[in-house]
């Protein structure tokens, strides 16, 4: 019985395969398909709600998967945007540094070492930062550190490849400065009321809005560690009373210590 059915199947295949599309078996098949069609349509109608439900849930799964992919892409693009913004900011800073190096206000007799700030100030116990240039780059203690905006501070510790910069805002920092317009001398220091231009005698003329620059004094035996003419800040308040010997002068520093990322270390050409 089974062998008869197998032979019959082989015969069907052979005949079907050899005959034309209008042959007898094809016509039988066509008729059979026509008979089956209502059943298929009926089954499809019965199955359609289930198929729709399956399609709906499959669509939800697909949408969820697509949502996850899009979220991942959004995160990646956000990171890229952050990196781009950071690169643009760094580019602007470096352009500023380059402009400063090429400008006439860049001190004569000094070369420079560009450096990035790699450790920011701790804040509570001193205003220091660490830069990625050290003794191997020619940096030494007490070398001045500047930004395109103005004076930043001075090198206070040097290692092979890193150095510590004590900022102007540190209480131990003191810079000899002069009023660029009147040449009134004084010392810029961080005090209880903020940055002050101290030791300005009452006979000196200092007005709000005056530019303060490094004095760069020099005697036969001693000299300031800062070259002359580096911008430091602008006077914001001037006052005096009859009791004190000196004027009360407050200033706003040019260097923005909150967003500082790159600096130049001024290295004397003839040390």
């Amino acid at each position, binding site marked *: *019985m*089974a062998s008869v*059915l197998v032979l*019959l199947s082989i015969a069907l295949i052979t005949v*079907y395969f050899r005959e034309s599309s209008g042959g007898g*078996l094809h016509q039988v098949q066509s008729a*059979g398909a026509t008979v089956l069609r209502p*059943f*298929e349509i009926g089954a499809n109608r019965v199955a359609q709600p289930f198929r729709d439900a399956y399609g709906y849930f499959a669509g939800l799964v697909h949408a969820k998967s697509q949502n996850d992919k899009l979220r991942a892409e959004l995160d990646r693009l956000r990171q890229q945007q952050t990196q781009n913004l950071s690169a643009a900011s760094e580019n602007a800073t470096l352009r500023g540094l380059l402009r400063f190096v090429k400008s006439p206000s860049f001190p004569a007799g000094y070369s420079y070492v560009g450096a990035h700030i790699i450790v920011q100030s701790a804040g509570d116990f001193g205003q220091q930062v660490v830069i990625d240039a050290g003794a191997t780059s020619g940096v030494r203690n007490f070398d001045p550190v500047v930004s395109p905006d103005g004076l930043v501070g001075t090198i206070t510790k040097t290692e092979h490849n890193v150095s510590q910069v004590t900022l102007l805002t540190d209480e131990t920092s003191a810079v000899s400065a002069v009023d660029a317009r009147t040449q009134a001398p004084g010392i810029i220091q961080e005090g209880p009321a903020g940055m002050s231009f101290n030791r300005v005698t009452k006979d000196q003329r200092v007005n709000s809005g005056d530019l303060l620059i490094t004095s760069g004094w020099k005697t036969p035996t001693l000299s300031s560690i800062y070259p002359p003419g580096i911008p430091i800040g602008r006077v914001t308040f001037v006052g005096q009373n009859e009791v004190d010997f000196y004027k009360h002068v407050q200033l706003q520093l040019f260097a923005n210590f909150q967003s500082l990322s790159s600096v130049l270390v001024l290295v004397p050409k003839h040390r």
Partner: protein
Amino acid sequence: MTLDVAKGAALVFVAVIVQVTLLSDINVSHGAPNLVLVVLVSVALLRGTIYGAAAGFAAGLVVDTATLQTLGVSSLLLTLAGYWIGRYGETTGRDRTHAPFLSVGVVTVLYSLGALILHYMLGDPASAQRVLIEALPFALLFNLALTLPVYALCRRIFMPPPSGLEEVRLLG
């Protein structure tokens, strides 16, 4: 006997209609469940070689007719499958719990292999990688998942009615 044939014909017919209208849509890596094959294996296990071969032949004819494929290809494969599983059921497998699963697993693999060879011989585009590596594992999983409910249903449909002359165990 006539009632059995009618039941078998109806079952196979419904299986083919469900297969070609609904189950062929479920497709994972080209692998789809084959309800006709699972029904055939169940019927053959329960009813033996002749019944299995005849059911396979009929199911194959309906499948090829509905799908407008080369007439006889499915018939040949399903006839052989029905016969062999029927023989297995008649000899050793019928009362064993694992028999339906083992039969469905083996038949699914052999059916895929046989279909590949037949289609290759007929000049149809047949990719062994697609059929045996990509599709077969999923088809196997689908068919094994269908085995338990389908076999239980078939067993219920083809269960012989109580004759009143049940076997009794004599005590003492």
